[in-house]
């Protein structure tokens, strides 16, 4: 692999952040979204894509506020629908690089259907889901990834529902590329986003993140740092996992690339059809 161009902080701020008016950002102290934004920007920068060709699309939620801050073509859509908007953009102009930033509520609650269909359709998008296991924006309600038994403002007695494993879900729906990272491993996260970004086909990256203000407070985490340590202690890299005893993996989240297949990509198939028709071949 080529040596990536490491982005220095001043470049990051000048070239990639709409820092002039928008900072400090809206996110709470210690929230994992900001760190993820750094990883995503660094990943895109190291992929050396022209900013003009990058479109960042999001839904509604704390995580979905990211497009406000980055100096790309940015689209803050409706709750749960960013993948559908992004699909339209990508098919309309396959030369654009489209990245979707979303939250666990946005992509897995109201937007679950668009997620699984994008997996199936295999259109070349990168979806980064910042999974903080809660609806942050609206004040800490249970999300589809809130672990069973955990507390949320709509689950004061402990959540009854089982949580999605978003990586199992997307893999089951047929995604070409599935990976999981965590805010604690911000460097690995950047690499996973890079891989996803470069993947020809639909790529999904789950980011295990922290919402100290709601999830943390409800579930007795004392600080953002403690939540980061939780991430460290409850994840296992998929490569390491291969060498670990199953009982030691119990309850642990696997990180790293969890699925990577080569399937024909939708916009390429489409462009081929257009070419064939033009050549009178269909």
């Amino acid at each position, binding site marked *: 692999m080529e040596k990536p161009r490491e982005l220095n902080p001043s470049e990051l701020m000048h070239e990639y952040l709409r820092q002039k008016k928008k900072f400090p950002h*809206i996110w709470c102290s210690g929230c994992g979204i900001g760190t993820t934004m750094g990883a995503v920007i660094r990943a895109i920068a190291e992929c050396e894509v022209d900013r003009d060709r990058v479109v960042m699309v999001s839904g509604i939620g704390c995580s979905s506020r990211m497009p406000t801050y980055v100096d790309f073509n940015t689209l803050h859509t409706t709750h749960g629908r960013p993948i559908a908007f992004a699909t339209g953009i990508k098919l309309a102009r396959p030369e654009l690089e489209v990245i979707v930033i979303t939250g666990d509520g946005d992509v897995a609650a109201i937007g679950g259907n668009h997620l699984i269909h994008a997996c199936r359709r295999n259109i070349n998008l990168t979806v980064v889901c910042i999974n903080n296991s809660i609806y942050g924006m609206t004040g800490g309600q249970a999300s589809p990834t809130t672990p069973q038994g955990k507390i949320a403002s709509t689950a004061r007695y402990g959540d009854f529902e089982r949580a999605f494993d978003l990586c199992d879900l997307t893999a089951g729906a047929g995604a070409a590329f599935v990976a999981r990272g965590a805010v604690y491993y911000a460097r690995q996260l950047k690499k996973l986003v890079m891989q996803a970004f470069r993947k020809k086909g639909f790529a999904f990256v789950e980011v295990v993140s922290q919402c100290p203000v709601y999830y943390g407070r409800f579930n007795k985490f004392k600080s953002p740092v403690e939540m980061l340590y939780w991430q460290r202690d409850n994840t296992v890299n998929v490569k390491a996992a291969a060498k670990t005893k199953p009982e030691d993996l119990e309850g642990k989240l696997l990180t790293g690339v969890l699925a990577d297949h080569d399937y024909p990509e939708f916009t390429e198939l489409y462009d081929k059809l257009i070419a064939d028709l033009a050549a009178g071949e269909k």
Partner: protein
Amino acid sequence: MIVVRFAGYGGQGLLTAGLILADAAAVFDKKKVIQTQSYGAEARGGASRSDVIISDEDIVFPKPDHLDILVAMNQLSVDKYSSALAEEGTLIADATFVTTITFPDFYSIPFTEIARERLGREIVANVVALGALVELKGVVSKKAAAGALEQRIPQGALDVNRKALEAGFKAARTAASARDKAVADYDIV
């Protein structure tokens, strides 16, 4: 009718202070009360405020066009809301953070410092401020304030909050007499 605004950062407990005051007035003092506050992103990290209207008669419109008392826990709130104060209004500021006040009638008391240094819990600065407000302006009875406190504050934190209320009363008395003195001095000059 009296209109009180608590204003400061999100996290300074202003919404709680507003609720205790409103409870004290409505449930304990049997006044008519309306309480409103800032919501959403605004409240989460940034500026936060809670307004309480207390009246002997029905309050028809809940969004008054002026404030009678502004309890400002940071400089921003002073700058932003002083102009909304009625001419005869009063500004009560947290001297820990507020450095510049242009409004004529004001008290400046270091609520946060008191909470941090004397009570060991910065978080109860809001209740110190509430105590001062009650002592200085008598918007509710002290008994009502204490009663509402008992209701709103969870068991575990009650003790320090009770102390905070008292500390507020006391700090206010000190400030008031200091100011009386200052005013007296001024009169003499």
